[in-house]
C-alpha cells in the first residue's frame, strides 16, 4: 500500500499503483472471508434510539450513553444520559447487535423524550453528534416524514458515508415518504420472516437494500427482561451487527466496499456458503 494519501478528486496520470487496495479481495468472496472468526472486536457501534438500559445482561457494558436535549430555539445539548431507556426499543437493538458481535463497543445516543415537537431537532442533533464522533456503525431504527429535515439528513448521511461511518436505517413499510433510509448513502433494511439472525438478502428492487430478520425476534427489554417483537426496526440492528462483524475483520472497508461485501454474501446472491 502506498504511504501517500489517496487522491481526493482525480487520479494523477500514471499513478494507478497508488490506488492499490489495502486488502486483497478473493475471486470468490465467501462469508468465511467476510467475517469468519470475527467478534466485531473494538468496532464502535452507536444506537441512536430511546436510550439503553444500563447493565442489561443481554447488552453488557456500554462505552458511553448520552441524551439529546432540545433547548430554546431548537438548540441542542448533549449530556450524559441519566434516564436509561424510555421505551425498551434501544435496549432491544443493542441486545441484537451484542448477540451478533459480542466484542464490539456499544454507545447509546438517546433522541427520545424531547416530546413529539422536539423529536425532529433531537434526531438531527443526535445524528450530527454521532457522525462527528466517528462511530464505525450508526444504527437508526427511526425515520421522519418532515421534508424540512430531509436536506440536512441527506447531508449528514453523505458526511457519514465519506467519513467511513456506516449509517444503517430502518426502511418504512408504510406508504409514506420518509427519511433518511431512502438515501443511497444509507444502508436501508427491511424484514424477512426467517428465524436465522445471520440470514439476509439483497433487494434488487430499490429503495430498500437489504432484508434481515425482523419477525418474532426475542430481544432484550426493560427491567433486565426479554420480549418477542416484530418490525423493520429490529431487522436493522441485525444488519448493524453483521456490519460490525465484517468491519471487525476488515477494518479498512469503506461503506461502499462494505455494501459490496454484504451484497456478495447475501443469501440470494452467493452468500450462506
Amino acid at each position: 500500500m502506498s504511504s501517500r494519501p489517496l487522491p481526493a478528486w482525480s487520479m494523477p496520470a500514471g499513478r494507478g499503483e497508488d490506488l492499490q487496495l489495502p486488502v486483497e479481495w478473493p475471486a470468490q468472496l465467501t462469508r468465511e472471508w467476510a467475517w469468519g472468526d470475527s467478534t466485531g472486536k473494538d468496532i464502535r457501534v452507536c444506537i441512536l434510539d430511546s436510550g439503553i438500559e444500563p447493565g442489561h445482561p443481554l447488552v453488557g457494558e456500554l462505552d458511553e450513553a448520552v441524551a439529546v436535549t432540545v433547548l430554546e430555539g431548537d438548540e441542542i445539548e448533549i449530556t450524559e444520559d441519566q434516564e436509561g431507556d424510555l421505551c425498551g426499543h434501544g435496549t432491544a437493538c443493542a441486545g441484537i447487535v451484542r448477540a451478533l458481535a459480542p466484542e464490539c463497543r456499544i454507545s447509546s445516543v438517546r433522541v427520545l423524550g424531547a416530546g413529539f415537537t422536539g423529536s425532529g431537532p433531537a434526531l438531527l442533533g443526535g445524528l450530527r453528534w454521532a457522525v462527528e464522533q466517528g462511530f464505525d456503525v450508526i444504527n437508526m431504527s427511526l425515520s421522519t416524514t418532515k421534508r424540512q429535515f430531509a436536506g440536512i439528513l441527506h447531508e449528514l448521511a453523505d458526511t457519514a458515508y465519506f467519513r467511513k461511518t456506516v449509517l444503517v436505517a430502518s426502511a418504512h413499510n408504510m406508504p409514506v415518504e420518509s427519511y433518511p433510509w431512502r438515501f443511497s448513502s444509507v444502508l436501508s433494511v427491511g424484514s424477512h420472516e426467517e428465524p436465522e439472525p445471520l440470514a439476509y438478502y439483497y433487494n434488487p428492487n430499490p429503495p430498500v437494500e437489504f432484508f434481515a430478520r425482523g419477525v418474532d425476534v426475542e430481544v432484550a427489554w426493560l427491567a433486565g427482561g426479554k420480549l418477542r417483537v416484530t418490525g423493520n426496526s429490529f431487522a436493522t440492528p441485525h444488519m448493524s451487527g453483521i456490519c460490525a462483524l465484517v468491519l471487525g475483520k476488515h477494518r479498512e472497508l469503506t461503506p461502499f466496499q462494505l455494501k459490496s461485501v454484504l451484497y456478495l454474501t447475501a443469501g440470494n446472491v452467493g452468500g450462506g456458503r
Partner: protein
Amino acid sequence: MSEDLRAAVAAGVLGAEEEHRALLQSVVEVARAIFSARASSVFLLDEEADELVFEAVAGEGAESLIGQRIPSSTGIAGWVLVTRQPLVIDDLANDPRHARDVAESTGYVPHGLMCVPLLHEEKALGVLNVLDRASQFTLEEMELLGLFANQSAIALDLLQRARRAQAVLAESGDPAEALARVASLLEGDNGDAGRKLLGALEDVLRPRM
C-alpha cells in the same frame, strides 16, 4: 384567509365534530375486525399540549378513560409516533411497566400489541393500537395494518383541518366569517336560489371598469 374559508365551507358541510368522533370509532372497530383482535384503540397527538390523547376504543376497553393523556415521546406509543415505525410486541406482560400503562387505557392487560403510526404526508397524527389478535402476526398483516392506518390518517387529517378552520372562524370577527356561513349553506335544499342570489350580489358589488 381564503384557504381557511374553503376549509370552513367543508367544515360546515361535514359537521366536523360529530363526524370526527364517528370516524375514530369506525377506525378502531374496523381495525379490530380486520385482525380478529380483542380490542383496538387510537391515540391522537394534541400538538399544542404535545401529548397523546386516548380518543376511541373498540372491543374490550374502558370508554370512561377516553380523554386520558400520555407523554408524546416515551413508552411504546411515543416511540412509534416519534420514529414513525410500526411495532409489534407479542408478550407484553413481560414488560410490567408498559403492560400496566396499556391496561390503564384498556381496562385489561393484553398479551400482544400492534402499534402503528397514523401518518399523512408530513404529519404524524397519532397511533393506532390493535390488542390481542387471534393468530400469529405475519409481515403481510403488518403491511395490511400499514395500508389501513394510511387510509385512516387521510380521513382524519381532512376532518382535523375542517375542525381547525371551524375553530378559527368561531374566534374570528372577520367579515369573511358571515360569508363562509352563507357559502356553507349553498349545499342545502335552497342551494340553487342561494347561488343565484350570491351571483347577483357579486354583480352589484364588482367595481365597474
